[in-house]
C-alpha cells in the first residue's frame, strides 16, 4: 500500500500546495574556465550547467557548412542519487541529452557561426525528480551567460497527476508513485513548446489542465531566469554605489 501523497488539506509531502513550485535558486557565471555557466537549485535538485564555445568542430567531419552544431551531455553524478549510479552514460541519459539538445536548438542562432561547435554540459549533482526540466532551464541560462546569440530563453517545468489531482513540479516521490508526469519546456518569445513529453496515464481533460499549470510554472521560472542573468551585472553596480 502506497503512502498518501496529498493530505486532506491539499498539501503535498514536502508541504507545498498543488500549484506551487519548489524553492528555486539560480546563479550564473560560476565556473571560471567555461565560457558560460549556471548553477540551478529546485528543491533538492542541484544542477550545474556549463557551455563551451562556439569553437572549432572536432572531430572535423561533424562540422556543418551552414551552421554551428550543438553537442549536449546530460549526466548524473554517481552521488546524485541514494543508490550509487554507474558514471557511464546510461540509455536514459543519452536520450535526455538528445531531447535537451533538441529543445535548445530553436533558441540558438546557429547560422551565425557555421562550421563551429557549441558544447553544453549538464551535471546533475543531486537528483530529486524533474531533472530534465531543471537541466534545460540551467543550460539556457549558461548559454545566455556565454554570450551566444539566442532568440530567447527556454524555461522548463513538469506537471503531473498525483493521487488523482493535477500538481505542478513533481518531486522524486511524486514522480515515482504518482499517476502521470508531463515535462514541458516553453520559449515565451517564440510561443513554442520545445519539449513536451508524457509518462503515465491521464484523461484528455487532465492533460489540458496539466499543460496549463506547467505553462504557468514555466512563466514563473522565466521571470527568475531574467532576474538571475541581470543580477550578475547589477551586483557590481550596487557595490560601486556603496563605495
Amino acid at each position, binding site marked *: 500500500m502506497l503512502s498518501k501523497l496529498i493530505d486532506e488539506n491539499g498539501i503535498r509531502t514536502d508541504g507545498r500546495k498543488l500549484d506551487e513550485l519548489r524553492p528555486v535558486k539560480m546563479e550564473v557565471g560560476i565556473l571560471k574556465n567555461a*565560457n*558560460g555557466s549556471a548553477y540551478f537549485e529546485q528543491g533538492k535538485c542541484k544542477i550545474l550547467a556549463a557551455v563551451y*564555445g*562556439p*569553437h*572549432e568542430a572536432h572531430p572535423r567531419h561533424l562540422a556543418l*557548412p551552414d551552421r*554551428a552544431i550543438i553537442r549536449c551531455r546530460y549526466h548524473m553524478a554517481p552521488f546524485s542519487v541514494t543508490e550509487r549510479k554507474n558514471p557511464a552514460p546510461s540509455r536514459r541519459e543519452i536520450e535526455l541529452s538528445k531531447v535537451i539538445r533538441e529543445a535548445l536548438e530553436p533558441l540558438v*542562432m546557429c547560422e551565425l*557561426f*557555421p*562550421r*563551429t561547435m557549441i558544447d553544453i554540459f549538464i551535471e546533475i549533482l543531486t537528483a530529486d525528480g524533474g531533472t530534465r526540466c531543471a537541466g534545460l532551464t540551467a543550460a539556457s541560462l549558461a548559454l*545566455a*551567460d*556565454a*554570450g*551566444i*546569440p*539566442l*532568440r*530567447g*530563453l527556454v524555461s522548463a517545468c513538469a506537471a503531473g497527476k498525483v493521487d488523482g489531482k493535477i500538481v505542478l513540479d513533481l518531486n522524486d516521490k511524486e514522480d515515482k508513485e504518482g499517476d502521470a508526469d508531463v515535462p514541458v519546456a516553453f*520559449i*515565451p*518569445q*517564440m510561443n513554442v513548446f520545445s519539449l513536451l513529453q508524457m509518462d503515465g496515464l491521464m484523461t484528455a481533460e487532465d492533460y489540458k489542465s496539466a499543460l496549463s499549470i506547467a505553462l504557468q510554472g514555466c512563466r514563473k521560472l522565466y521571470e527568475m*531566469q*531574467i532576474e538571475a*542573468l*541581470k543580477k550578475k*551585472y*547589477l551586483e*557590481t*553596480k550596487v557595490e*560601486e554605489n556603496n563605495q
Partner: protein
Amino acid sequence: MSKFVEDRQIVVPGEVLAEGDFRLGENVYRNGNRILSTMVGLTRIDGERLSVIALHGFYMPQNDDIVIGIVNDVGLTHWVLDINAPYPGILRANETPGRPFDPTRHELLDELKIGDMVIAKVLSFDRTQDPALTLKESGLGKIKDGVVVSLTPSKIPRLIGKKGSMLNIIQQKTGCQIIVGQNGRILARCGDKTKEDLAIKIIKVIEMEAHMSGLTNRISRLVETERTKEVG
C-alpha cells in the same frame, strides 16, 4: 512605433526592445513587428537605430582587425594561430615580412614556434574559410617583450574609449605602450614591473565595470591614487 527600454538598460536574450519600424543594430533581431535582444547586454538607442552592447561575448574576426594570436601548429607553408575566435587564424609563410618564402630553403620553425605570440592583422574572413592573417605591415610581428592580458572581446571598445580617449589616459598615466588586439588580448609594454602591474589592474577594472557610466573618470582617479601610494 514604441520603445519599451531606455538607453543603457540591461537586457537579456529575448527581451522585447521595441515595436515598429526601427533600424536594427548589432545583437538584435526582428520577430514580426517586434525587435528583440539576442544577448545579455546594454541597450543603445541612436535615433531610429536599436542595438545591444554585449556584456560578455566571443570574438568574431573581421577584415583589417588587429589581433594577438598564439601559434598552435606549424605546417609546411603556414602557421595555425589561436586567435580567441571560433575559427583558427591561418598565417601563410608568404605573409611574413622579408624575402619570399621558399619551402626548399626556409624553415618555418626558424621564425615562429608553437607558443609564440604575434600581433597580426586579419586579411580576409567570410565564415566559409578560416581567417587569413598577415604580418606584412608596420607594427605587426612576433611579440618579444611585454605582458599580454585577456579581456572579454565585447569590452574592447570600452578599453579604447571614445576616439581612443581611455587608451590615451592609460598610456599617458602608466607610461606603458598598449597594443589592443580586437580579439580580447592586450599587449602592455612597460619595461617596469610596477607600471606593468598598474596597467594590468586598470584593464581588469575596466573589464569588471565596463557596463557602468563614468568609467573614464574613475580610471583617472584610480591611477592617481595608485601613484600617490607609490610616492608615499
